[in-house]
Protein backbone atom coordinates (compact mmCIF):
# COMPACT_ATOMS: atom_id res chain seq x y z
CA UNK A 1 0.00 0.00 0.00
CA UNK A 2 1.33 3.43 -0.89
CA UNK A 3 1.81 5.97 1.83
CA UNK A 4 -0.85 8.70 2.02
CA UNK A 5 0.45 11.96 0.60
CA UNK A 6 0.28 15.17 2.63
CA UNK A 7 1.31 18.57 1.30
CA UNK A 8 2.55 20.71 4.16
CA UNK A 9 1.87 24.33 3.20
CA UNK A 10 5.10 26.25 3.70
CA UNK A 11 4.31 29.93 4.15
CA UNK A 12 7.16 30.59 6.56
CA UNK A 13 5.62 29.22 9.78
CA UNK A 14 8.21 27.83 12.11
CA UNK A 15 6.97 24.40 13.03
CA UNK A 16 7.30 22.81 9.58
CA UNK A 17 10.16 20.50 10.50
CA UNK A 18 8.54 18.99 13.58
CA UNK A 19 5.18 18.61 11.80
CA UNK A 20 6.86 16.93 8.86
CA UNK A 21 8.69 14.49 11.12
CA UNK A 22 5.49 13.74 13.06
CA UNK A 23 3.51 13.11 9.85
CA UNK A 24 6.23 10.82 8.56
CA UNK A 25 6.22 8.89 11.83
CA UNK A 26 2.44 8.58 11.38
CA UNK A 27 3.04 6.95 7.98
CA UNK A 28 2.56 9.83 5.54
CA UNK A 29 4.65 10.78 2.53
CA UNK A 30 5.15 14.52 3.06
CA UNK A 31 5.81 17.23 0.49
CA UNK A 32 6.68 20.64 1.91
CA UNK A 33 5.66 23.27 -0.61
CA UNK A 34 5.11 26.98 -1.04
CA UNK A 35 4.07 26.48 -4.69
CA UNK A 36 0.37 27.27 -5.15
CA UNK A 37 0.16 24.78 -8.08
CA UNK A 38 1.34 21.98 -5.80
CA UNK A 39 -1.00 23.11 -3.03
CA UNK A 40 -4.12 23.36 -5.21
CA UNK A 41 -3.64 19.79 -6.51
CA UNK A 42 -2.91 18.24 -3.13
CA UNK A 43 -5.06 15.34 -1.91
CA UNK A 44 -4.34 16.30 1.69
CA UNK A 45 -3.15 19.60 3.07
CA UNK A 46 -1.75 20.54 6.38
CA UNK A 47 -1.64 24.22 7.33
CA UNK A 48 0.85 24.74 10.16
CA UNK A 49 1.02 27.81 12.29
CA UNK A 50 3.15 29.60 14.78
CA UNK A 51 3.10 33.29 15.46
CA UNK A 52 0.51 35.88 14.67
CA UNK A 53 -2.57 35.38 12.47
CA UNK A 54 -2.04 38.63 10.57
CA UNK A 55 1.50 37.76 9.51
CA UNK A 56 0.37 34.24 8.60
CA UNK A 57 -2.49 35.47 6.37
CA UNK A 58 -0.21 38.05 4.74
CA UNK A 59 2.30 35.32 3.94
CA UNK A 60 -0.40 32.99 2.56
CA UNK A 61 -1.86 35.75 0.37
CA UNK A 62 1.54 36.90 -0.87
CA UNK A 63 2.11 33.51 -2.48
CA UNK A 64 -1.47 33.05 -3.67
CA UNK A 65 -1.64 30.16 -1.22
CA UNK A 66 -4.96 31.27 0.32
CA UNK A 67 -6.79 30.76 -2.99
CA UNK A 68 -4.81 27.59 -3.67
CA UNK A 69 -5.96 26.11 -0.35
CA UNK A 70 -9.61 27.06 -1.07
CA UNK A 71 -9.40 25.56 -4.55
CA UNK A 72 -7.87 22.33 -3.24
CA UNK A 73 -10.67 21.99 -0.70
CA UNK A 74 -13.30 22.72 -3.37
CA UNK A 75 -11.74 19.93 -5.46
CA UNK A 76 -12.10 17.44 -2.62
CA UNK A 77 -8.85 17.70 -0.68
CA UNK A 78 -8.75 17.04 3.05
CA UNK A 79 -7.29 19.76 5.23
CA UNK A 80 -5.86 19.82 8.76
CA UNK A 81 -4.91 23.12 10.39
CA UNK A 82 -2.70 23.13 13.47
CA UNK A 83 -2.63 25.89 16.12
CA UNK A 84 -2.68 29.17 14.15
CA UNK A 85 -3.46 26.88 11.19
CA UNK A 86 -6.79 26.04 12.89
CA UNK A 87 -7.46 29.72 13.51
CA UNK A 88 -6.90 30.56 9.83
CA UNK A 89 -9.73 28.20 8.83
CA UNK A 90 -12.28 30.56 10.39
CA UNK A 91 -13.73 33.85 9.12
CA UNK A 92 -11.83 36.42 11.14
CA UNK A 93 -9.19 36.75 13.83
CA UNK A 94 -9.07 39.46 16.49
CA UNK A 95 -5.31 39.01 16.43
CA UNK A 96 -4.25 41.78 14.03
CA UNK A 97 -7.98 42.07 13.12
CA UNK A 98 -7.47 40.01 9.99
CA UNK A 99 -9.77 38.25 7.53
CA UNK A 100 -8.95 34.54 7.43
CA UNK A 101 -9.76 31.73 5.00
CA UNK A 102 -13.45 31.53 5.91
CA UNK A 103 -13.73 27.76 5.44
CA UNK A 104 -15.53 27.38 8.78
CA UNK A 105 -17.95 29.84 10.43
CA UNK A 106 -16.63 31.55 13.55
CA UNK A 107 -14.19 34.08 14.92
CA UNK A 108 -10.85 33.88 16.68
CA UNK A 109 -10.67 35.85 19.94
CA UNK A 110 -8.08 36.59 22.59
CA UNK A 111 -8.50 34.33 25.63
CA UNK A 112 -9.62 37.14 27.97
CA UNK A 113 -10.06 35.99 31.55
CA UNK A 114 -7.20 33.52 31.54
CA UNK A 115 -4.74 34.37 34.33
CA UNK A 116 -1.55 33.52 32.47
CA UNK A 117 -1.22 34.07 28.75
CA UNK A 118 0.02 32.45 26.58
CA UNK A 119 -1.97 29.34 27.54
CA UNK A 120 1.14 27.21 27.54
CA UNK A 121 1.48 23.58 28.45
CA UNK A 122 -0.49 20.34 28.62
CA UNK A 123 -4.23 20.51 29.10
CA UNK A 124 -7.30 18.27 28.73
CA UNK A 125 -9.04 17.80 25.40
CA UNK A 126 -12.70 17.15 26.27
CA UNK A 127 -14.79 15.55 23.50
CA UNK A 128 -18.20 17.12 22.87
CA UNK A 129 -20.74 14.42 23.83
CA UNK A 130 -22.80 12.93 21.01
CA UNK A 131 -20.63 14.25 18.23
CA UNK A 132 -18.44 11.38 17.07
CA UNK A 133 -16.25 12.16 14.10
CA UNK A 134 -13.74 9.91 12.35
CA UNK A 135 -10.92 12.49 12.57
CA UNK A 136 -11.38 12.54 16.34
CA UNK A 137 -11.57 8.77 16.77
CA UNK A 138 -8.33 8.95 18.72
CA UNK A 139 -8.44 12.33 20.34
CA UNK A 140 -5.61 12.96 22.81
CA UNK A 141 -6.86 13.04 26.42
CA UNK A 142 -4.16 15.61 27.20
CA UNK A 143 -2.28 17.67 24.60
CA UNK A 144 0.28 20.46 24.36
CA UNK A 145 -0.94 24.02 23.77
CA UNK A 146 0.94 27.30 23.20
CA UNK A 147 -1.38 30.18 22.20
CA UNK A 148 -3.16 33.32 23.40
CA UNK A 149 -6.02 33.36 20.86
CA UNK A 150 -8.65 30.71 20.15
CA UNK A 151 -12.15 30.12 18.75
CA UNK A 152 -14.57 30.36 21.69
CA UNK A 153 -17.62 29.27 19.65
CA UNK A 154 -17.05 27.07 16.62
CA UNK A 155 -20.70 25.95 16.60
CA UNK A 156 -21.46 22.54 15.10
CA UNK A 157 -17.82 22.17 13.99
CA UNK A 158 -16.69 21.78 17.61
CA UNK A 159 -15.53 18.22 18.29
CA UNK A 160 -13.67 18.93 21.54
CA UNK A 161 -13.14 21.82 23.91
CA UNK A 162 -10.50 22.76 26.46
CA UNK A 163 -10.91 24.87 29.58
CA UNK A 164 -8.44 27.12 31.34
CA UNK A 165 -9.38 29.37 34.30
CA UNK A 166 -13.08 28.90 33.48
CA UNK A 167 -12.63 29.96 29.85
CA UNK A 168 -13.56 27.27 27.34
CA UNK A 169 -12.51 27.20 23.69
CA UNK A 170 -12.64 24.82 20.72
CA UNK A 171 -9.55 22.61 20.78
CA UNK A 172 -10.57 20.30 17.93
CA UNK A 173 -12.89 21.24 15.08
CA UNK A 174 -14.05 19.59 11.89
CA UNK A 175 -16.38 20.27 9.00
CA UNK A 176 -16.74 18.42 5.74
CA UNK A 177 -13.14 17.27 4.98
CA UNK A 178 -11.75 20.20 7.01
CA UNK A 179 -10.32 19.73 10.48
CA UNK A 180 -8.27 21.74 12.92
CA UNK A 181 -6.41 21.22 16.19
CA UNK A 182 -5.64 24.15 18.49
CA UNK A 183 -3.11 21.94 20.28
CA UNK A 184 0.13 20.73 18.71
CA UNK A 185 -0.23 17.04 17.74
CA UNK A 186 3.44 17.01 16.69
CA UNK A 187 4.40 17.96 20.24
CA UNK A 188 1.80 15.94 22.15
CA UNK A 189 3.80 12.70 22.44
CA UNK A 190 2.10 9.39 21.53
CA UNK A 191 -1.40 10.86 21.88
CA UNK A 192 -0.62 13.46 19.21
CA UNK A 193 0.75 10.82 16.87
CA UNK A 194 -2.49 8.83 17.23
CA UNK A 195 -4.50 11.90 16.20
CA UNK A 196 -2.37 12.38 13.08
CA UNK A 197 -2.91 8.72 12.13
CA UNK A 198 -6.63 9.39 12.63
CA UNK A 199 -6.44 12.24 10.10
CA UNK A 200 -4.74 9.95 7.58
CA UNK A 201 -7.38 7.24 8.08
CA UNK A 202 -10.28 9.70 7.85
CA UNK A 203 -8.94 10.98 4.55
CA UNK A 204 -8.05 7.52 3.15
CA UNK A 205 -10.80 7.69 0.51
CA UNK A 206 -9.16 10.64 -1.23
CA UNK A 207 -6.73 8.44 -3.16
CA UNK A 208 -9.53 6.03 -4.06
CA UNK A 209 -11.50 8.92 -5.54
CA UNK A 210 -8.47 9.84 -7.63
CA UNK A 211 -8.40 13.40 -6.39
CA UNK A 212 -4.62 13.13 -6.27
Amino acid at each position, binding site marked *: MTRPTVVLVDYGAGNIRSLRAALERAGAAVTVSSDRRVVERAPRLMVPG*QGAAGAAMDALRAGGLDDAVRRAVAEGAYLLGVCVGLQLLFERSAEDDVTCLGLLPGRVERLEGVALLPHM*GWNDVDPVPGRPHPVAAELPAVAYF*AHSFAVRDAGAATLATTEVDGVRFASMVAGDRIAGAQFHPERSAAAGAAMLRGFLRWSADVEARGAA
Partner: protein
Amino acid sequence: MLRRRVIPCLDVSAGRVVKGVNFVNLRDCGDPVEAAVRYAAQGADEIAWLNITAGDEGWRTLLAAVERAAEQVDVPVTVGGGVSEERHVRDLLAAGADKVSINTAALRRPELVTECAERHGAQCIVVAIDARADDGPTGSWTAYESGGRRATDRDAVAWAEEAVRRGAGELLVTSMDADGTKAGYALDLLGAVVERVSVPVVASGGAAGPEHMADALEAGCAAALAASIFHDGTFTVEEVKATCRTRGIPVR
Protein backbone atom coordinates in the same frame (compact mmCIF):
# COMPACT_ATOMS: atom_id res chain seq x y z
CA MET B 1 -6.86 21.44 33.92
CA LEU B 2 -3.61 22.98 32.76
CA ARG B 3 -0.79 20.76 34.07
CA ARG B 4 2.39 22.03 35.70
CA ARG B 5 5.44 21.08 33.64
CA VAL B 6 8.58 19.16 34.52
CA ILE B 7 11.46 20.10 32.24
CA PRO B 8 14.84 18.39 32.01
CA CYS B 9 17.46 20.87 30.87
CA LEU B 10 20.38 20.07 28.60
CA ASP B 11 23.31 22.45 28.92
CA VAL B 12 25.06 21.77 25.62
CA SER B 13 28.68 22.61 24.88
CA ALA B 14 30.32 21.61 21.56
CA GLY B 15 27.54 19.10 20.88
CA ARG B 16 27.70 17.39 24.30
CA VAL B 17 25.53 17.71 27.39
CA VAL B 18 27.52 19.20 30.27
CA LYS B 19 26.70 20.29 33.80
CA GLY B 20 28.68 22.57 36.05
CA VAL B 21 28.41 23.93 39.55
CA ASN B 22 27.83 27.69 39.74
CA PHE B 23 28.33 27.93 35.95
CA VAL B 24 31.91 26.52 36.02
CA ASN B 25 33.65 23.10 36.22
CA LEU B 26 31.76 21.53 33.32
CA ARG B 27 31.57 17.77 33.00
CA ASP B 28 30.41 15.59 30.08
CA CYS B 29 26.94 14.01 30.36
CA GLY B 30 26.34 12.57 26.84
CA ASP B 31 24.69 13.21 23.46
CA PRO B 32 21.94 15.86 23.69
CA VAL B 33 19.59 14.30 21.11
CA GLU B 34 19.79 10.90 22.82
CA ALA B 35 19.17 12.57 26.16
CA ALA B 36 16.19 14.55 24.81
CA VAL B 37 14.59 11.40 23.36
CA ARG B 38 15.18 9.52 26.61
CA TYR B 39 13.60 12.27 28.72
CA ALA B 40 10.62 12.61 26.36
CA ALA B 41 10.03 8.86 26.72
CA GLN B 42 10.20 9.25 30.53
CA GLY B 43 7.34 11.74 30.36
CA ALA B 44 9.19 15.07 30.20
CA ASP B 45 6.67 17.80 29.34
CA GLU B 46 9.25 19.79 27.46
CA ILE B 47 12.99 19.78 26.85
CA ALA B 48 15.12 22.85 27.53
CA TRP B 49 18.32 23.09 25.56
CA LEU B 50 20.84 25.77 26.53
CA ASN B 51 23.75 26.25 24.15
CA ILE B 52 26.80 27.37 26.09
CA THR B 53 29.33 27.54 23.25
CA ALA B 54 29.93 30.72 21.30
CA GLY B 55 30.98 31.47 17.73
CA ASP B 56 29.77 30.70 14.20
CA GLU B 57 30.91 27.10 14.19
CA GLY B 58 29.24 26.50 17.52
CA TRP B 59 26.07 27.99 16.01
CA ARG B 60 26.07 25.69 12.98
CA THR B 61 26.70 22.67 15.20
CA LEU B 62 23.81 23.79 17.38
CA LEU B 63 21.38 24.18 14.46
CA ALA B 64 22.25 20.73 13.10
CA ALA B 65 21.73 19.14 16.51
CA VAL B 66 18.45 21.02 17.07
CA GLU B 67 17.22 19.77 13.68
CA ARG B 68 17.93 16.18 14.74
CA ALA B 69 16.26 16.74 18.11
CA ALA B 70 13.18 18.37 16.58
CA GLU B 71 12.70 15.40 14.27
CA GLN B 72 13.15 12.76 16.95
CA VAL B 73 11.51 14.35 19.97
CA ASP B 74 7.69 14.48 20.24
CA VAL B 75 7.40 17.05 23.03
CA PRO B 76 8.24 20.78 22.84
CA VAL B 77 11.87 21.85 22.73
CA THR B 78 13.04 25.27 23.96
CA VAL B 79 16.46 26.37 22.77
CA GLY B 80 18.57 29.24 24.03
CA GLY B 81 22.14 30.41 24.49
CA GLY B 82 23.96 32.72 22.12
CA VAL B 83 20.77 34.22 20.70
CA SER B 84 21.76 37.81 20.00
CA GLU B 85 19.74 38.78 16.91
CA GLU B 86 16.32 38.19 15.42
CA ARG B 87 17.86 36.00 12.71
CA HIS B 88 19.07 33.59 15.41
CA VAL B 89 15.49 33.19 16.57
CA ARG B 90 14.39 32.61 12.98
CA ASP B 91 17.18 30.03 12.45
CA LEU B 92 16.28 28.10 15.59
CA LEU B 93 12.54 28.08 14.86
CA ALA B 94 13.28 26.91 11.32
CA ALA B 95 15.52 24.18 12.76
CA GLY B 96 12.49 22.98 14.72
CA ALA B 97 12.74 24.67 18.11
CA ASP B 98 9.29 25.38 19.55
CA LYS B 99 10.49 28.26 21.70
CA VAL B 100 13.66 30.30 21.81
CA SER B 101 15.10 31.84 24.95
CA ILE B 102 17.01 35.12 24.94
CA ASN B 103 19.17 36.32 27.81
CA THR B 104 22.13 38.70 27.43
CA ALA B 105 20.99 40.22 24.13
CA ALA B 106 17.62 41.12 25.66
CA LEU B 107 19.34 42.91 28.55
CA ARG B 108 21.57 44.84 26.18
CA ARG B 109 18.82 45.70 23.71
CA PRO B 110 15.34 45.08 25.16
CA GLU B 111 13.65 46.05 21.85
CA LEU B 112 14.90 42.72 20.50
CA VAL B 113 12.23 40.99 22.61
CA THR B 114 9.49 43.08 20.99
CA GLU B 115 10.85 42.54 17.49
CA CYS B 116 11.00 38.77 17.97
CA ALA B 117 7.58 38.55 19.63
CA GLU B 118 5.93 40.61 16.87
CA ARG B 119 7.49 38.54 14.15
CA HIS B 120 7.21 35.06 15.64
CA GLY B 121 4.54 35.39 18.34
CA ALA B 122 4.97 35.81 22.08
CA GLN B 123 4.30 32.08 22.62
CA CYS B 124 7.74 31.18 21.27
CA ILE B 125 9.79 33.94 22.91
CA VAL B 126 11.22 33.15 26.34
CA VAL B 127 13.34 35.62 28.25
CA ALA B 128 15.88 33.87 30.47
CA ILE B 129 16.97 35.77 33.55
CA ASP B 130 20.03 34.87 35.64
CA ALA B 131 19.66 36.54 39.02
CA ARG B 132 21.84 36.82 42.10
CA ALA B 133 20.66 38.05 45.51
CA ASP B 134 21.95 41.47 46.51
CA ASP B 135 23.96 41.81 49.70
CA GLY B 136 22.08 42.87 52.77
CA PRO B 137 18.54 42.23 53.97
CA THR B 138 16.85 43.98 51.02
CA GLY B 139 15.22 40.97 49.36
CA SER B 140 16.31 42.16 45.94
CA TRP B 141 18.16 40.51 43.11
CA THR B 142 20.38 41.74 40.28
CA ALA B 143 20.14 40.43 36.72
CA TYR B 144 23.40 39.05 35.32
CA GLU B 145 24.47 38.73 31.70
CA SER B 146 27.00 36.67 29.75
CA GLY B 147 26.16 33.35 31.37
CA GLY B 148 26.27 34.87 34.83
CA ARG B 149 29.72 36.39 34.43
CA ARG B 150 28.71 40.06 34.51
CA ALA B 151 26.35 41.99 36.72
CA THR B 152 24.02 44.48 35.07
CA ASP B 153 22.52 47.54 36.73
CA ARG B 154 19.06 46.02 36.47
CA ASP B 155 16.91 44.73 39.29
CA ALA B 156 15.97 41.18 38.24
CA VAL B 157 12.27 41.47 39.16
CA ALA B 158 11.89 44.85 37.44
CA TRP B 159 13.59 43.35 34.39
CA ALA B 160 11.16 40.41 34.48
CA GLU B 161 8.24 42.86 34.34
CA GLU B 162 9.82 44.83 31.52
CA ALA B 163 10.60 41.68 29.51
CA VAL B 164 6.92 40.69 29.68
CA ARG B 165 5.80 44.20 28.73
CA ARG B 166 8.09 43.95 25.74
CA GLY B 167 6.52 40.69 24.58
CA ALA B 168 8.13 37.74 26.34
CA GLY B 169 5.64 34.85 26.47
CA GLU B 170 7.49 33.04 29.23
CA LEU B 171 10.27 33.69 31.73
CA LEU B 172 12.99 31.23 32.66
CA VAL B 173 14.32 32.40 36.01
CA THR B 174 17.61 30.97 37.26
CA SER B 175 18.95 31.73 40.72
CA MET B 176 22.74 31.84 40.42
CA ASP B 177 22.99 31.51 44.18
CA ALA B 178 21.05 28.27 44.15
CA ASP B 179 22.27 26.83 40.81
CA GLY B 180 24.27 23.65 41.25
CA THR B 181 24.04 23.72 45.03
CA LYS B 182 21.23 21.16 45.29
CA ALA B 183 19.78 23.21 48.16
CA GLY B 184 16.47 23.87 46.40
CA TYR B 185 15.20 26.68 44.18
CA ALA B 186 15.33 30.30 45.34
CA LEU B 187 11.62 30.37 46.20
CA ASP B 188 11.77 34.00 47.40
CA LEU B 189 13.07 35.16 43.99
CA LEU B 190 10.59 32.97 42.08
CA GLY B 191 7.69 34.11 44.25
CA ALA B 192 8.61 37.76 43.67
CA VAL B 193 8.63 37.24 39.89
CA VAL B 194 5.43 35.14 39.78
CA GLU B 195 3.60 37.82 41.75
CA ARG B 196 4.52 40.53 39.26
CA VAL B 197 3.99 38.95 35.83
CA SER B 198 1.07 37.37 33.93
CA VAL B 199 3.04 34.89 31.82
CA PRO B 200 4.25 31.40 32.80
CA VAL B 201 7.41 31.35 34.92
CA VAL B 202 9.86 28.44 34.73
CA ALA B 203 11.93 27.81 37.86
CA SER B 204 15.59 26.97 37.40
CA GLY B 205 18.63 26.40 39.58
CA GLY B 206 19.09 24.40 42.74
CA ALA B 207 16.89 21.29 42.49
CA ALA B 208 18.26 18.25 44.29
CA GLY B 209 15.16 16.15 43.88
CA PRO B 210 11.41 15.82 43.30
CA GLU B 211 10.44 17.64 46.50
CA HIS B 212 12.32 20.76 45.42
CA MET B 213 10.62 20.71 42.02
CA ALA B 214 7.23 20.33 43.69
CA ASP B 215 8.13 23.28 45.97
CA ALA B 216 8.66 25.54 42.94
CA LEU B 217 5.39 24.43 41.34
CA GLU B 218 3.54 25.04 44.61
CA ALA B 219 5.12 28.51 44.73
CA GLY B 220 3.22 29.35 41.53
CA CYS B 221 5.73 28.46 38.84
CA ALA B 222 4.17 26.96 35.69
CA ALA B 223 7.15 24.67 35.26
CA ALA B 224 10.25 23.49 37.08
CA LEU B 225 13.49 22.79 35.29
CA ALA B 226 16.41 20.65 36.43
CA ALA B 227 19.53 19.21 34.88
CA SER B 228 21.90 17.19 37.02
CA ILE B 229 19.33 15.16 38.97
CA PHE B 230 18.20 13.70 35.63
CA HIS B 231 21.64 13.44 33.98
CA ASP B 232 23.10 11.66 36.98
CA GLY B 233 20.20 9.23 36.94
CA THR B 234 19.41 10.18 40.54
CA PHE B 235 15.74 10.65 39.65
CA THR B 236 13.54 10.05 36.60
CA VAL B 237 10.95 12.51 35.34
CA GLU B 238 8.26 10.04 36.39
CA GLU B 239 9.54 10.05 39.97
CA VAL B 240 9.26 13.83 40.06
CA LYS B 241 5.71 13.59 38.77
CA ALA B 242 4.78 10.94 41.32
CA THR B 243 5.91 13.30 44.08
CA CYS B 244 3.88 16.13 42.52
CA ARG B 245 0.76 13.94 42.40
CA THR B 246 1.20 12.99 46.04
CA ARG B 247 1.31 16.69 46.88
CA GLY B 248 -1.78 17.44 44.80
CA ILE B 249 0.01 19.30 42.01
CA PRO B 250 -1.60 18.66 38.60
CA VAL B 251 0.91 17.03 36.25
CA ARG B 252 0.55 15.04 33.05
